[in-house]
């Protein structure tokens, strides 16, 4: 283990190097370009054994990854925003085929208007594609998560996305600890694919057509495989904790034990909010934070257990559903708690679109609001667009 200074992108590229995948097929896109660039250097300097395919689009990037994974290779790529949108079609195909491909992703808003900065609209738009998804809060976690995600993906044959916030994390250099190459290799182990199109003894047809008689059965089996991800993840995360001393639960609770109210947030903002919690705690206020790290599959029982103990919860959504009903995290959170006998009042804060800075005072204001909601026992304003001009 050694201490280094790396940006989120450098941290993910370094984890990729230590994983040493068989094939990386990728296309550069701001702000994830560096991941591909840095990895190209590792390839050029012979530091990895990887076959690097510099494709002509993100669509081809994931298509080539699918081909390489069906061929039995350990496969990774990297992208962001429009790139993920261009991959969208193939995301479903990779998942349906049970290909444990891992994407090092940087969360960036989707056009229009074009904008290169952070929000979560890109990954939220892919939430039904059948990929495991982890939102990271800092460079250290981005590095660690890529390794844990790969292990989980290969154990379950479910592909994974690990994401950081554009620029806020992707381009911010932070201090982190990295493992030795051999520790990473021992942790992930040799890849043993479930099938390979290069297996000449047992020719198979990959990606066949289903009529009405089989499609539903195939999807049901996929959903069942997906349901095993949470346990496999937790096992991988615990094994990783033994190795690194850093444990990342699917859902993180921070100072929630006696809290009356909490913020439910993901990504770098959740990390920032811990600072606000400490500050408010110093003032004697009973506030806490629940951080959504794993978004797919949803750790439903953990979320229910965590959130039902509060009087009020503010969900922080860095994207909107365009349903005129708030952001995706808000909608799903309310859905999860519907059957709970004790449930908090839940409000939504859509914030930070297109990289709009979220200040400590903004987060403090959300705590002020939910304390008010908890005290009044009712919600005055269900959805707030935080930090946008023209809203009061």
């Amino acid at each position, binding site marked *: 283990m050694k201490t280094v200074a790396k940006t989120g992108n450098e941290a993910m590229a370094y984890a990729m190097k230590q994983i040493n995948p068989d094939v990386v097929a990728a296309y550069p896109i701001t702000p994830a370009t560096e991941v591909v660039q840095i990895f190209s250097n590792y390839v050029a300097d012979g530091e990895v054994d990887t076959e690097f395919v510099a494709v002509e689009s993100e669509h081809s990037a994931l298509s080539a990854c699918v081909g390489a994974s069906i061929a039995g290779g350990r496969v990774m790529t990297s992208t962001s925003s429009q790139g993920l949108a261009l991959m969208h079609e193939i995301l479903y195909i990779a998942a*349906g*085929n*049970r290909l444990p491909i891992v994407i090092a992703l940087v969360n960036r808003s989707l056009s229009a208007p074009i904008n290169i900065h952070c929000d979560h609209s890109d990954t939220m738009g892919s939430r039904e594609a059948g990929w495991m998804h982890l939102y990271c809060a800092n460079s250290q976690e981005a590095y660690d998560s890529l390794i844990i995600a790969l292990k989980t993906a290969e154990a379950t*044959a479910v592909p994974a996305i690990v994401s950081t916030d554009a620029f806020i994390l992707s381009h911010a250099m932070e201090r982190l600890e990295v493992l030795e190459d051999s520790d990473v290799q021992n942790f992930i182990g040799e890849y043993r694919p*479930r*099938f390979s199109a290069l297996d000449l003894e*047992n*020719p*198979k*047809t*990959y*990606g*066949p057509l289903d009529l009405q*008689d*089989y499609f*539903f*059965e*195939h999807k*049901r*089996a*996929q959903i*069942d495989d997906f349901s095993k991800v949470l346990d496999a993840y937790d096992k991988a995360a615990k094994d990783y904790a033994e190795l690194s001393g850093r444990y990342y639960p699917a859902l993180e609770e921070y100072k929630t034990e006696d809290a009356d109210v909490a913020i439910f947030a993901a990504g770098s903002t959740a990390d920032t909010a811990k600072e606000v919690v400490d500050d408010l705690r110093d003032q004697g206020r009973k506030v806490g934070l629940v951080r959504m790290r794993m978004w797919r599959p949803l750790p439903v029982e953990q979320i229910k257990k965590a959130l039902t103990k509060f009087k009020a919860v503010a969900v922080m959504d860095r994207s909107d559903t365009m349903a005129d009903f708030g952001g995706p995290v808000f909608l799903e959170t309310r859905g999860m708690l519907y059957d709970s006998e004790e449930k908090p009042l839940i409000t939504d804060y859509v914030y930070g679109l297109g990289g709009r800075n979220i200040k400590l005072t903004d987060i403090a204001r959300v705590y002020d609001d939910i304390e008010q909601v908890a005290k009044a026992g009712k919600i005055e304003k269900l959805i707030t667009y935080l930090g946008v001009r023209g809203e009061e």
Partner: protein
Amino acid sequence: MSMKFDKLMTWKELPAGCLIDEPSTSLRFKTGDWRSMRPVWDSEKCIHCLFCWISCPDSAIKVENEKITGIDYNYCKGCGICASICPPKASAIEMIREEK
């Protein structure tokens, strides 16, 4: 090999992944009943040029030891290509109406 063909598999019985885990399973699916015209091959007239064999879209011309041995009616859809390209000097294949 975990595929079943005699009945519809449940989702728990499917091979892991989204694949057909053995080759050439379509041989279990007989397309011969699509036919309304039937090619009839005359072994006496056949010169074994193999033109019909290489041109058949359904791999339905049977060959053994470089010689044609007949037509596989399990798969032949009756398109008539074989009869149409059989060299005139041989005319070893005739299309007749399929009697049901």
